[in-house]
């Protein structure tokens, strides 16, 4: 069932990102609930993680020597599931059962899903769990790395900063923290709900190495991950600037798409738009 890793070139990865977007739209439409904007906005990051960066084996999801990715903002799990499914962790037909009774794919991540490393959804916890794992891997002198994604609205949770202090204290250079900086949260724009700026200064002052990237540039995502590996004695945070709802014109940058699924008509239109984007790569 596990698919062979495709050739690691940027066009190929960009196409996969669009495929994941289509999977997300279909699955959300079918579920009639779920979080659209963040899932679409992080498609490139998930593609690079699961198709280029992480040392993982879909046939042995619990292999001891594996890299770990923790999704702290569990509500964008449709994109995680799409990546895991595309990578062969479970049968793609499961995507049709997202949020349904007796499903492998819960509304927020559950460790029963192959490839899911932690339950997430109560915000602020995933980064602490990742810090714990990075500490454990260091204690065991493992070469494997730990990655965690949080949203930006999630940074309102004080626990995030408890975890950030601890990671710096123990010099966890095996930890990469990706922040989906899409400027929205459930109640509106982050600057209205709870201003976070200057975010870079905040995290740097916690003694992290900080990078800022275009979260839709496959190239920048890849090179930021490489850079993080070269940093020693400090954890790395990557502030990934993303467009929520990316790829679908009527969803982009609109906070109202944070927590709702597309209707069948909207889904059809969205998929059409994404397919066009994909086709454009072929033509280029």
């Amino acid at each position: 069932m596990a698919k062979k890793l495709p050739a690691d070139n940027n066009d190929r990865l960009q196409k996969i990102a669009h495929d994941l977007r289509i999977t997300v739209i279909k699955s959300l439409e079918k579920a009639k609930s779920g979080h659209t904007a963040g899932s679409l906005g992080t498609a490139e990051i998930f593609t690079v993680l699961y198709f280029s960066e992480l040392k993982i084996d879909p046939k042995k999801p619990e292999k001891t020597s594996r890299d770990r990715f923790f999704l702290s903002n569990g509500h964008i799990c449709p994109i995680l599931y799409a990546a895991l499914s595309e990578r062969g962790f479970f049968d793609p037909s499961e995507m049709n059962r997202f949020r349904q009774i007796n499903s492998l794919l819960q509304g927020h991540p559950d460790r029963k899903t192959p490839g899911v490393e932690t339950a997430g959804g109560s915000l602020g916890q995933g980064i602490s769990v990742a810090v714990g794992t990075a500490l454990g891997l260091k204690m065991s002198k493992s070469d494997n790395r730990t990655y965690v994604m949080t949203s930006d609205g999630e940074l309102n949770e004080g626990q995030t900063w408890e975890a950030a202090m601890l990671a710096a204290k123990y010099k966890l250079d095996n930890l990469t923290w990706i922040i989906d900086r899409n400027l929205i949260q459930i109640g509106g724009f982050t600057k209205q709900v709870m201003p976070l700026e200057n975010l870079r200064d905040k995290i740097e002052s916690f003694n992290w190495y900080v990078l800022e990237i275009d979260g839709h540039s496959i190239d920048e995502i890849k090179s930021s991950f490489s850079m993080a590996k070269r940093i020693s004695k400090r954890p790395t945070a990557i502030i990934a600037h993303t467009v929520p709802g990316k790829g679908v014109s009527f969803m982009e940058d609109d906070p109202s798409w944070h927590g709702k699924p597309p209707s069948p008509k909207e889904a059809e239109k969205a998929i059409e738009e994404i397919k066009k984007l994909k086709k454009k790569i072929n033509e280029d």
Partner: protein
Amino acid sequence: MSKSTKRELRSTRDAFGETLLDLAKENSKIVVISADLAESTRILPFAKKYPERFIEVGVAEQNMASVAAGLSFTGKIPVMASFGVFSPGRNWDQIRVSICYNDANVKMFATHTGLSADRDGATHQSLEDIAIMRALPNVKILSPCDFWEAKRAVKAAFEIEGPVYVRLSRAKTEVITTPQHSFKIGKMRIMEKGEKIALVGTGTIVSDGLNAAQEINKKHPNTVRVINCPTIKPFNIKDLLKSLGGIRKIITIEEHQIDAGFGSLICEMLSEEREKYLISRVGMNNEFGESGSFEELKKKYRMDKEGIKKIILDKIKNE
């Protein structure tokens, strides 16, 4: 009466600290996380002996719980220790999601439970931890009655896979078991024989119950039975029924709020049985504590030997 005064006084937190050190010697997977209470929770000797296996997260109990879960995912067996009011009091959601829902192999130890934070006052007295922990799936809850039982409970926590919560006290309380007593999760023990009324208790207050029962049994022979329940979850109703042996008059004793705590648990379990039971609950009666010595607090809030005796005598009178 003379029997009780001769008993040795030791704290269950000391039992925890000593046992942890013993276990750590044999099991290198054990790592310990502190939230700035290493001395009070008795994990300091471990920290000194195994600094490479000790993590200090600072005053951050929420982080502590989720970090513990993350450590467990790398094969470590994380131990986290704090006062009961802070863990699980402060970090219940992290315990719920990061530890219990993930079914993470984390061992949680709360010291200073019940009234044992005494002079620190109500903010530090953990009288609700059983209530909030027993509502969670996947976790096992142990509440030893004395030093020796605490040693065995701590050991038992590491013999099973998955989350375990162990409720410990700061107070030096009477040692009522011996190192030879057997201990099995889910198993109860009859501490005193009697046929009319059963005192069913958990934690160090069992020693007060035992003293009360023994005094009464001197005057009214064979009246009060004392049943010690060191396992709160999973609760073994079969063993309780067996230990009750047909006694229908019950007094529950706990150093905890009587609502949603151990007494409530006994009421819930017995209400599902065919027989009818008459149950009185001794514990904190829906109020906060205050500053004072441990003995003064137990007396004022009727959780000492005399308080328990009074309830028993009332029950005998109303027969």
